[in-house]
């Protein structure tokens, strides 16, 4: 009866595994709950302890090396770190250095595994943001784990470690999209200190690639440093890559400098609809009413995106709403369509309805164009 014996053995194994899984489930439930409670209690105690050390310079309550290695201590440290500033932050940094917290986290970060431990250490170093960890974080900008690279950059950004800016910027050309986007966020933490390295990167690379320079331009827009306006105009005039041109136009719009207006207006006549559409949006962002006439002309553009963006841009300009109302009666139904949509998005149709009673003529124009309430829009 080998089949029966085999079946018996299989049953035994399966039910043994089931019993083990059940035991693991119970254990996990009990142990996990106990661990979470204990962690929370210790965390609260450590927050009080650190607060006492910060408040009283001569506090004698001991912080031991065992405590410094406790994950609950780390969480408490991050809680306190995010709640203090100025001299209190300096005191906290002294406590951190005195008790070897940074060294301990660096050791964890540099161990080959487990992954969770390394992640936690990288996050801790980024959160604590102490200058003594800067060199290690710089090395880990090229770590094999994307999350560790991100956290390393974030830590460097938090302490404004300027020697790392160039290294982070250069990674734009080689990183995966997710990490690249997070590096861009990090560079905004540096503020204007990152402006020139970013501009230099774009200048050198925009002829050879588009993704990195385009992201660098968007990062410049985020940093919001007006020193970048003229160099970006130069890049816009010099670039022959569509992605880079689009990013430059967006950046100029976000920076909102009137210096860029004439260059953007030229793009409204570009053969590329993408550039026309982006230029329209950027002119709306700059907000100069001098663009109204140009944008109204673009409401009759053959491309839907250009019409839509031009109408949305007009809605942002002083006097633009009136121009959109005037376009509702335009002979080009597509232009009227774009104007109506922008007015709706701006909440203006409600006002238009109120005007219906006061100025029947204006309302008729609107309703004729859009159709009556009951009919299908298809």
């Amino acid at each position: 009866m080998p089949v029966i014996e085999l079946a018996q053995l299989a049953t035994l194994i399966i039910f043994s595994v089931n019993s083990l899984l059940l035991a693991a489930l119970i254990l996990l439930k009990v142990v996990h709950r106990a661990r979470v409670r204990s962690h929370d209690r210790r965390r609260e105690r450590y927050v009080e302890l650190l607060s006492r050390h910060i408040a009283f310079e001569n506090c004698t309550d001991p912080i031991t090396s065992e405590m410094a290695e406790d994950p609950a201590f780390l969480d408490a440290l991050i809680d306190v770190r995010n709640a203090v500033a100025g001299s209190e932050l300096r005191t906290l940094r002294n406590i951190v250095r005195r008790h070897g917290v940074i060294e301990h986290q660096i050791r964890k970060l540099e161990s080959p595994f487990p992954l969770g431990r390394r992640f936690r250490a990288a996050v801790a170093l980024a959160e604590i943001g102490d200058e003594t960890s800067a060199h290690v974080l710089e090395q880990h900008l090229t770590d094999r784990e994307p999350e560790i690279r991100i956290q390393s950059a974030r830590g460097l950004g938090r302490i404004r470690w300027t020697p790392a800016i160039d290294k982070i910027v250069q990674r734009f050309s080689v990183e995966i999209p997710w990490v690249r986007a997070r590096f861009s966020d990090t560079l905004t933490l540096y503020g204007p200190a990152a402006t020139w390295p970013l501009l230099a990167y774009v200048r050198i690379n925009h002829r050879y690639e588009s993704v990195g320079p385009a992201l660098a331009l968007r990062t410049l827009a985020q940093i919001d440093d007006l020193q970048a306006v003229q160099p970006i105009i130069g890049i816009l005039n010099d670039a022959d890559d569509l992605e880079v041109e689009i990013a430059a136009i967006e950046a100029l719009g976000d920076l909102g400098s009137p210096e860029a207006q004439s260059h953007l207006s030229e793009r409204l006549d570009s053969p590329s609809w993408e550039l026309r559409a982006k230029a329209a949006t950027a002119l709306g962002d700059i907000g100069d009413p001098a663009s109204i006439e140009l944008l109204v002309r673009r409401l009759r553009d053959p491309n839907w995106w250009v019409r839509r963006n031009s109408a949305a841009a007009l809605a942002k300009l002083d006097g633009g709403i009136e121009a959109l109302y005037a376009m509702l009666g335009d002979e080009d139904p597509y232009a009227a369509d774009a104007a109506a949509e922008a007015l709706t998005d701006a909440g203006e149709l409600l006002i238009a309805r109120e005007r219906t009673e006061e100025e029947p003529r204006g309302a008729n124009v609107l309703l004729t164009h859009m159709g009556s309430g009951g009919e299908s829009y298809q």
Partner: protein
Amino acid sequence: MILDLLRWVGYATITYFIVMQAYLIFLAVASGLALRRTHHLQRFGRVGEMLSSRSTPPISIVIPAYNEEAGIVDSVRSMSIVKYPRFEIVIANDGSNDDTLAALIEAFHLEKVRIPYRPDLECEPVQAIYRGRAGVDITVIDKENGGRADALNAGINAARYPYVLCTDADVVLDPDCLIQSMQRVVEDRERTVGVGGNIRPLNGSRVELGHLIEASVPSQLIPRMQILEYVRTFLASRPAWSWMNALPNVSGAFGIWKKSTMVEVGGFTTGHMGEDMDLTMRIHRYHLDNRIPYRIVYEPSAVIWTEVPDTIRVLRRQRIRWHRGLMTATKDFLPMTLNPRYRQVGMVSWAGYFLFEYLAPIIEFTGWFVVPTAWLLGALSGTSLMWMLLIALGMGLLNSLLGLLLDETYGYFNSPKDTSRLVAMALIENFGLRQMTVLWRIRALIGGASVRGWGNMERRGVANLAKQS
């Protein structure tokens, strides 16, 4: 001769069941490995950064609604406070007979507006469009009745953003679910065309003003059985399929899609009873046929809570509808099944669906008759039959326990009472409940009047769910 045939059919039936459970256990183990990595990434702070990042793409939340008066306002409120930098809510009222539209107009101060509407996807005519004035960026499309898929297509047409979340009116979104799922888009925007979320039953949990306050397992057996099913599906198999880029189904309750991709494949198929599965498979087929790099991923930390049937009558109707949807999809995508051209989708996940979802009720149902008959006629020995059934039961239990273990690590139910209820359910479901679902699926195979359109269950509204348990 007949006895031999009965014996072999009997053995084949039980062996099939064991192989099916082995496949599910393989998926559960692979899911565990996939979840472990995702868990680390989630735990250590990548998500919060997205809230302030410019690289976070805006998204349109599209909600089809048909006679959802009871819960639509609470649902929209829960959706309007999700943590996400930029989103809009588009509700497609699919010709409701109740006061769904009036409830929305009142709650969100909607005004009828006249804006152009572009029918990129085919759908029934739109009667009117409303926009909100009360802070929430909300658009309501009032259209003629055409079914869930049709309403979704109308909503997608009106969506202004490049990604659309197709969901239901009876769900409660976890505040982090959008940001958790969209991070998968941001990390690879070129290739990511779809993201599925982790659907969990809401029955028995405490919900206030459209927000989940406390998750718990209800005492009623029917919703409790479904919780276990959802745990097995969403924690013990989808992570593995996602890891293989072979998700055969992004659930209709929470699916984020690239709008341009949806327009390319023609959106949801109107009248299909498994429109979510149909769409997912068409998107796979489109990309694989045209050799376009893509991925459809599942994000377990994007949690969505939904009401599940709490009576046998409603559950029966739902399961018949689901199985008919599967039947149609099986027929439509038969050329993909076990076809190496469709890589992991054809060879692993869709093959698994065909073998262990579509064929399962037929084989199990056959087994109910053949195995006892073979035993009564002496073609199967009582001892071997007993051992094989024990193996099958043990493997089924193993699969459920693996799911619960994953749920314990990555899930939501904190109290020991909830866990013990689910463990008990893992055993109880084998004695009657599982068999009941097999019968319903056989009923679906037999045919009869189709439950087309919405196939709606009676809604209690998310705020009233806790009271029933």
